[in-house]
């Protein structure tokens, strides 16, 4: 796409943002009930959908079709104008859609992609209590019985399961195979008998994580994605496929609203007339953060472009995830520390925010939601060293 067309698109997206993003959404979304939050999220999704901005990364035939360059511009503008984040639909439009597009049957796609556009909500059912970062050691079983699988087990950390219609489920279909073999990828209707969802409270006091108990849940064999026992491979491919653009979105948010608030916070005159910004230590810390955020945004942009060109390295996504999560944590820690006692008085963050909401202390706590799941930082470092740098693997443990 020529630069001028892209600049025209930027102007268009900018106008849309100015016209459609409610100026006061952060104020109105503080302390809302669960139902209000869900309805705000669904309404915002439809608003974006009308503009063609909800699923820009999907193929044109399914309602997307934006070029990568345009998507970058779109996420930059949404971030610059501090749009509400699509939290509820996140799994639906990213993991669920990319799984269906990459490995689903035509029938599965036709059943679910339009439904997602109409508001069908998905949850990811991968993690389990005993597995943690060793995701492949999952224990939930799916026993083949005629034309169906009968599933038993327990899933954990299923974010938003309480509102989900469908679940991306990994379950063991061959218990005798080595741990990465014998896992299958299934689409599970959350209204199936035997599915029991129990929200658990997290460190910030929120309830979005859930346990899912599965007790003889019957899933028709037609809801298998990819070949039986090949679910691990399918999950790996689709997990990494989407990471680039979502990381780009997050890095743009951190660099726009996130950093801007921090500077604004530090620019506010205190009762004694001084501003935090007058402190050389604060200045230095801010400049270091701005620099790292700039590095992150460039890394994300490179990842997206190289992914598109098919030249991305094997661990670029791990590098981005590691760097983003620890930078987020450091930045929120900095915000908490410099804002001081006042930061301790924000007891709620607005719904629909990103990982940075201006409630520094709460956001600092929330940052562990990035350094722990999806392969904890320790795991990412090992992946980067072994797959990226080719360093020798841990020797086999003697038994």
């Amino acid at each position: 796409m020529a630069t001028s067309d892209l600049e025209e698109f930027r102007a268009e997206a900018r106008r849309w943002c100015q016209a459609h993003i409610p100026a006061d959404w952060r104020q109105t979304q503080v302390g809302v009930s669960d139902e209000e939050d869900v309805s705000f999220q669904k309404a915002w999704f439809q608003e974006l959908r009308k503009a063609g901005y909800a699923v820009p990364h999907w193929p044109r035939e399914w309602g997307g079709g934006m070029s990568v360059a345009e998507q970058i511009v779109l996420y930059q503008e949404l971030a610059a104008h501090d749009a509400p984040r699509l939290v509820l639909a996140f799994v639906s439009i990213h993991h669920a859609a990319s799984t269906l597009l990459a490995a689903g049957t035509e029938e599965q796609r036709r059943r679910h992609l339009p439904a997602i556009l109409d508001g069908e909500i998905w949850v990811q059912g991968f993690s389990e209590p005993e597995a943690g970062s060793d995701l492949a050691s999952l224990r939930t079983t799916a026993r083949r019985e005629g034309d169906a699988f009968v599933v038993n087990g327990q899933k954990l950390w299923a974010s938003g399961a309480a509102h989900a219609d469908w679940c991306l489920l990994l379950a063991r279909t061959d218990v005798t195979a080595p741990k990465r073999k014998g896992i299958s990828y299934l689409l599970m209707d959350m209204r199936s008998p035997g599915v029991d969802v129990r929200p658990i409270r997290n460190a910030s006091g929120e309830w979005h994580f859930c346990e899912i108990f599965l007790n003889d849940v019957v899933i028709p064999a037609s809801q298998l994605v990819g070949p039986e026992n090949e679910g691990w491979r399918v999950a790996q491919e689709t997990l990494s496929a989407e990471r680039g653009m979502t990381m780009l979105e997050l890095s743009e948010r951190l660099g726009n609203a996130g950093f801007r608030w921090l500077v604004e916070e530090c620019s506010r005159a205190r009762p004694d007339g001084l501003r935090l910004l007058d402190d050389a230590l604060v200045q230095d810390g801010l400049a270091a953060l701005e620099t790292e955020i700039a590095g992150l945004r460039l890394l994300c942009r490179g990842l997206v472009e190289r992914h598109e060109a098919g030249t991305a390295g094997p661990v670029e996504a791990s590098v981005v995830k590691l760097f983003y999560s620890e930078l987020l944590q450091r930045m929120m820690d900095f915000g908490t520390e410099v804002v001081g006692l006042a930061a301790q008085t924000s007891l709620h963050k607005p719904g629909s925010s990103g990982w940075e909401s201006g409630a520094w202390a709460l956001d600092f706590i929330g940052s562990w939601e990035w350094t722990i799941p999806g392969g904890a930082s320790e795991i990412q470092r090992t992946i980067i060293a072994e797959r990226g740098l080719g360093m020798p693997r841990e020797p086999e443990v003697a038994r």
Partner: protein
Amino acid sequence: MRVDLTEFHDELRSVARGLLGDARARADGAELPTPIDWALLAESGWVGLEVPESLGGSGGSFAEQAVILHELGRTVTMSSYLGSAVLGVGALALLEPSPGRDELLRRVTAGDLRVAVAVETGDDGVGGDPAPFRLDRAGGGLRLDGRAAFVPDATGVELLVLARDPESAFVVVHVALDASGLHIAEQPVLDATRSLGEVLADGIEVSDSSIWRFRSDPGTSAQRLVDRGALAIACDSLGLAEAMVEATVSYTAERRQFERPIGSFQAVKHACADMLVKVLVSRELIDAAVQAVAGGDADASTAVSMAKSYACDAAVDVVGKALQLHGGIGYTWESGIHAYLKRAMLNRSLFGAPAAHRRRLAGRYGAGPLASSQA
């Protein structure tokens, strides 16, 4: 050379650990933290540790309070020990004896009532002005004005405020709770185990008998009071951090991933080693500061600033790493680690941020050769 109280402290610690552990176990599962029974603390003699025996206390020093504070931190216990014992008893003990002061001290020690002291608990209290209130002459009497935010355990208790009198000397004013112009409001913070409040004095009329003077130099005494608060917080943070090292070592020995206990991975071990080193360094700095404060050393503020800045920074890092090494479990409300993190974060900011204390330390560098702390 100081009297060796190691054995006595060990015993005190062991009793406190048992008692607070039991209380903690009883409170587990409650939605909100429950304050520990104040009568229990008073009966155990912990409130009056620094009170003269003649007033019902045990005539000890800050060193004994430090033992209790450490244990309260280990168990993230909710109590008004900081407000009533550390600051309240601490302030009263610094004052000239008088019937009013003696009576109050006796009753606090006995557990009959609690007391809060409104001092500056922000960065301004570190080397700046620790008194948020001032007394001015108005008509024939005196009137009190000022505002203190984030006052520990300020609600529902007797109130003392640190003020400057019309001659700018520091005094403590005992304010009647029904005084016109007094507004006390709870200030909710993320850490639900601490109760903080805002105290506003808007032209309160004050009688002479409620203005109490310090026994020693008022400036030094006022600074000591705020230093006590800072050091108490450091002791609390050390307790928090220590408990988190132990919890992490124990969790990672049990939790298995990739066919081995995660504690056998070098990354986990090295992180725990670093946590331990931070705890050990914190402990040394705090022990030294406690000795300096208990002994009334002239350079106690220096030792306090070192202990406060290092230990409170370290505790946030240590608890954060503990959360990380506990993985998803650590991030649940149920694991309780969040309570440690929130308290560590609040502790870092309360009674002076690390940077504020380092600024006070750096203030000594311009002024000739540094005293080498030998002890």
